């Protein structure tokens, strides 16, 4: 983006501050299966219902005061004109329909604009006679894996190879990488590149990445992401046929394996990662980072550490800082970040406090880095769509807080005590099998969805992210 363009965009964003129409770009960030699509759907639907039925959002001050009049969704958001519309109605239909399932996994980019009409309390605006204002909230949905590509934008092939090969040295990755590494040992870096060998290397690497992210392994940090979710790309495109290589002591000759792979990596980085980053991951005002803490807990220490590292890697790519009146000079930046532990309805409500504490510990390093830039951070235990209820179960004469709901793939409801969520990182010894049991509950108990979706903490998240803008 040229300096001129940049300035124009930033100037517009400053001008918007003084208009009756305000825009906010919300970054919904989260790894795959962290619930971005469901969050976006619930966010839109609950805000759309807030005009007529504000009672579902007691902690969104504007709704609680009765200031929200109504909302509407639009497909076109400036700057995202070529992006397909986020399938809001479809996602909502899946959640509230007879099938009561979760929306299918996101495999491409989509965007949506939510426009909120509300009565303003700002004296300046009221004095001008504009008592009703409009806030546009732009949301982008995309496969969570793609986020993991963002760090590549600033990385050389050598550096990326070194890091990726380093990761593959540790269990459980080392075991899964055996086939691929064995094949690589046969290949000669400085030797001539043969198409069949290269293809096989890329395929084995792809198989390794797939194996790492299997639900029972849960190693999420895997690059390049388009190997797994190609989106609009053809999976057989040569641009998707490379893998990390050991650094050569001397410069690789032209046409060698190393040189070809490096070329393809560079093309991938320059033609796919950078444009994607430039077009869709800049100019955010607020950010919510969704973290599936419970899955990380269930899978054990390695998965927990991996998720932590992946979050760290992603968040490096965003611009944080105070965007004030001088933002036309400094560029629009994320000024508020909320970390959310999703799927909190899988544990009973009296454990939410510990869930939040655990999340805070998990993201402490990133939160600290972000706060240093003068950006406000917060944490919340969230459930975008609540599909369980709290019940008391009796076990050996003692009452136990449990959750009741319909797990996926079953016909009958069940009551579950999933184990105690610790308030601190468990130690290695504590992480034994059978300490936790989480079930994938589906949204089967939802009634009266026209009045908004039942949730945990969505209103707090909304207040944190856009509450001040609805004043």
């Amino acid at each position: 983006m040229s300096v001129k363009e940049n300035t124009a965009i930033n100037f517009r964003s400053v001008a918007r501050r003084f208009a009756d129409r305000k825009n906010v770009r919300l970054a919904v960030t989260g790894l795959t299966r962290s619930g971005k699509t469901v969050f976006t759907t619930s966010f839109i639907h609950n805000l759309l219902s807030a005009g007529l039925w504000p009672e579902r959002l007691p902690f969104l001050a504007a709704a609680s005061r009765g200031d929200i009049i109504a909302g509407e969704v639009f497909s076109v958001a400036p700057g995202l004109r070529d992006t397909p519309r986020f399938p809001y109605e479809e996602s909502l239909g899946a959640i509230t329909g007879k099938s009561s399932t979760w929306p299918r996994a996101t495999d491409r980019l989509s965007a949506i604009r939510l426009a909120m009409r509300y009565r303003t309390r700002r004296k300046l605006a009221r004095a001008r006679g504009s008592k009703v204002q409009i806030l546009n909230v732009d949301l982008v949905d995309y496969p969570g894996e793609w986020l993991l590509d963002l760090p590549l934008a600033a990385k050389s092939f050598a550096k990326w190879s070194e890091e990726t090969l380093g990761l593959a040295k540790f269990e459980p990755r080392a075991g899964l990488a055996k086939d691929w590494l064995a094949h690589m040992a046969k290949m000669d870096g400085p030797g001539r590149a043969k198409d069949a060998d290269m293809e096989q290397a890329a395929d084995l690497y792809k198989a390794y990445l797939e194996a790492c992210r299997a639900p029972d392994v849960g190693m999420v940090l895997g690059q390049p992401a388009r190997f797994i979710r190609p989106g609009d790309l053809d999976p057989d495109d040569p641009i998707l046929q490379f893998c990390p290589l050991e650094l050569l002591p001397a410069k690789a000759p032209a046409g060698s394996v190393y040189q070809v792979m490096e070329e393809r990596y560079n093309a991938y980085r320059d033609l796919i990662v950078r444009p994607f980053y430039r077009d869709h991951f800049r100019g955010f005002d607020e950010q919510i980072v969704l973290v599936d803490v419970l899955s990380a807990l269930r899978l054990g220490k390695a998965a927990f550490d991996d998720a932590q590292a992946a979050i760290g890697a992603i968040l490096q790519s965003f611009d944080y800082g105070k965007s004030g009146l001088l933002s036309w000079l400094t560029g629009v930046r994320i000024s508020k970040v909320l970390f959310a532990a999703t799927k909190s309805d899988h544990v009973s409500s009296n454990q939410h406090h510990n869930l939040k504490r655990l999340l805070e510990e998990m993201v402490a390093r990133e939160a600290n880095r972000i706060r240093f830039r003068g950006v406000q951070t917060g944490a919340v235990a969230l459930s975008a769509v609540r599909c369980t209820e709290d019940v008391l179960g009796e076990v050996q004469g003692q009452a136990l807080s449990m959750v009741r709901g319909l797990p996926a793939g079953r016909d009958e409801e069940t009551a579950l005590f999933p184990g105690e969520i610790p308030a601190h990182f468990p130690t290695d010894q504590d992480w034994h099998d059978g300490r936790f049991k989480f079930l994938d509950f589906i949204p089967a108990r939802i009634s009266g969805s026209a009045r908004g979706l039942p949730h945990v903490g969505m209103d707090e998240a909304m207040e944190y992210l856009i509450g001040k803008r609805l004043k």
Partner: protein
Amino acid sequence: MTGRRLAEEEAGKPMAEPIELDPKRVKIAVAAAEPATVDLDPEEVPIEAVRGNPVAVVPPTTPAKPKPKWLRRIFWSSLGLFVVGVIVWDTWNFLVSAFAKNFAVGSALAAVAGMAVLSGVVLIFREISLFVGELRKLNEVSTFTGRATALRENGGHGEGLAFASRVIEPYAKRSDMKNRIAAFRGAVTSAHSDVQVLEILADKVVRPLDAQAYPMVARAARDTAMGVALSPFGLLDAGLMIWRTLGMVREVAQVYGFRPGFFGQVMLVRRILSTAATAGIGDFAGDVLVAQVGAQVGGLLSAKAGEGMLTGMSTARLGLVAMEACRPLSFAEEDRASIVRLGREIMKSKEKPGED
């Protein structure tokens, strides 16, 4: 239960295993009035088994023995008995002499006296029963505020709902509260923590009551200020202020669900004064300054106007304390009643004189 679990965790024992049950065997926690934990039997543990910081235990202080007040008591009770005796004796003599003079006049006077005594007794009984009821309510309010503070400080989960339904109960029959209580019930879910439940309760139920009470206080403050500014002599000032303030206290108390009779009102005023003396001072110090400055400025125009403003402000302050004394939850920082807000209410009531 949490206490025991924590203790186990501290001692390094294994934590509770995950468990799955048939939903028919479980109770629904949302509807449960009791907190979602089990009561534990008291347990004694050897000191070696206890970890963590020792908690300083304050020895229960035995209240200091009150000084014997028997002399004063004898004085007052004998004086009271004497006065009552004189009245009874006098009445008796009066009636006897009336009968001696004329039987018809005597019996008429006796009937009137009997009626007076009878209705007096009934009145006193009613007053006492009202007073006892209100006293219970007032005591309940102070337990409410204490309990709410405890819930806030514990930051726990599962006890807020039961507490909120106890606070709501006295308002359930009021027609103006039906919608507010419904709004509260619609907004709160079992996922909310105790602090959140209290916040929703304050927002949906208690703050609307404040909004009803504010204009009353504002009106009383304005009335006393105007009255004092216009009244020609001091005794009228005092009478005006007392009469209007008592009226205001009664109105405010009614908003929060009290029906104070005469004794109840006295009790309330006593309580208000003690609240003002203990809790209020720090909170209102800033407001006092504002009021003083305002009065000084008013005093530049006319001494009487300045005096009026000061009286108005103190009436307002008393009204705020009355609100605090009757409110089931104590004021949070953000809605701490302040003179500034009252000033706004006064302006509002001036804009719409038709509503007065």
